[in-house]
């Protein structure tokens, strides 16, 4: 199924929390500030409804996204007040993909954990949590995964300040 077909199906089965879709578009030649957008289409979802939304995607027979391929977050820049949560779903039965995005505020960055829906999410959420400072609510194992337990700061945030030293080792 292509992206439009997936969106129609999502609307038809009443998947919760859909805020909109974003598709690539051409540059507007009259507006110089408009850069257009290249790449993939994605569905924008309310972060609070994520768990239910993904459950719908997984269980519907026509969508059947059995695999959570990727889960990550993105800090679009210091000017932005929001962090993006990115989910990438893959259906083995129907051989299609869906990119899902949710936006949460940087100030109060927490989101529901989807480890109940896809077990694959557990480690990805641990990584996103330590790199972006996101709190995944009801996460079964919220420890650091790649960074040491005593690491300060969230390295993939744009406002991250590099440490001067770590345990007596100079980093400059």
């Amino acid at each position, binding site marked *: 199924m292509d992206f439009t077909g997936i969106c129609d199906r999502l609307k038809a089965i009443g998947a919760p929390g859909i805020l909109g879709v974003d598709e690539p578009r051409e540059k507007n030649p009259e507006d110089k500030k408009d850069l257009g957008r290249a790449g993939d289409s994605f569905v924008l979802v309310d972060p609070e409804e994520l768990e239910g939304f993904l459950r719908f995607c997984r269980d519907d027979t026509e969508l059947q996204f059995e695999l959570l*391929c990727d889960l990550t977050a993105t800090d679009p820049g210091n000017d932005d007040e929001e962090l993006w949560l990115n989910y990438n779903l893959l259906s083995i039965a129907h051989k299609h993909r869906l990119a899902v995005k949710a936006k949460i505020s940087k100030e109060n960055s927490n989101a529901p954990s989807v480890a109940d829906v896809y077990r694959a999410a557990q480690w990805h959420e641990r990584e996103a949590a330590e790199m972006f400072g996101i709190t995944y609510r009801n996460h079964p194992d919220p420890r650091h995964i790649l960074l040491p337990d005593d690491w300060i700061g969230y390295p993939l945030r744009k406002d991250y300040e590099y440490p001067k030293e770590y345990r007596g080792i100079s980093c400059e």
Partner: protein
Amino acid sequence: MDQERTATVTEPKESAVLPDGSKEFVVDVHTEDMELNMGPQHPATHGVMRILLRVDGELVTGAQPHLGYLHRCAEKIGENVEWLQYLPYTDRYDYLAAMNNNLGYSMAVEKLLGIEIPRRAEMLRIICAELNRIGSHLIAFGTYGLDLGAFTPFLYTFREREWMMSLFEKICGARLTYSYIRIGGVFNDTPPGWLGEVSRFCDTFLVKWQEYYDLVVENQIFIGRTADVGVIPREMAMDFGLTGPMLRGSGIDFDLRRDMPYSLYGEVDKAGALNIPVARGEKGSLGDCWDRVWVRTMEMKESIEIVRWCLDNIEAGPVIGELPKTLRVPAGEAYVGIENPRGELGHYVVSDGGKVAVRCRVRGPSFCNLPVLEEIMLGTLLADSVAIIGSTDVVVGETDR
């Protein structure tokens, strides 16, 4: 190992009456669970990975991989260097399949740029990616023998891998970290006679392949060590998001090269040169260690078929498109997943129209295939744990990035 190990012998609790009337006493020996650190420098963990095992005698009652010993912030580096400059860093996460990493990253950026790749470059990309897949599987295959105590296959596979690496050395000058596949095409055309040598490699390799297959895969001792060990059922494989040989080892017929074709794989498939091996549970339950090794072994043979198809169909032409020296990538975001030897290698790149990426996410297949260990190692014997870790074929450079 400084954990205290205590054994208490309790009073005989149960007694069964044997057929001759005598009583058999059952003595319970309770041992306390012991925590055992496997790694970070254990030869069977394939790198600097640590697995915290909890063992009750010989039984594994808990396994927890601890990562991060090789963490190099590849994603943060991606946000600090220019698009073209990031390419050499991609070599370094899955260092056994650097060509495939180059390909994945280049394709993600090309998707945003929306450019066409010259046909000869696509052919060379497939040849290199498939040769690299063979090299990577040879390591997986050889070191798996080492894990199980068979030293010979390791020496044999390294002999063939050496040839493959010298082929790459001739084409790009490097033996491990190639950076050969670039954004827009490949770095350079082939040196004279290179394609002929690849063809000779294919012929020789198929003979050697049969030797490996007979020597290891069909070996009764090998089957005894791997069949019915570390079984991953279909549902578990999908729930954990496994990809690549781990997924096909559980009997799920899915390969990105055929099912979501990229580059010229669609044409390869149409020509009938793309037959994806899927495990059938021949020697034990479906999804055991033997099945995964079998899938990798058969894939080497399939890769030779694909390379041969490319050698037959390659034409002269340019190998790289025209690109500006300072690359500005149009604003947008793209995710590209390609079939790495270990599974789906995904690159998620976000651009704001500038010289540097806003986000450069790498979805490493080793990282995603690893958590299943926590589940399948429960209740197995300690001696099998090495067989199970080896069958996942992790490269720690990629789990930690």
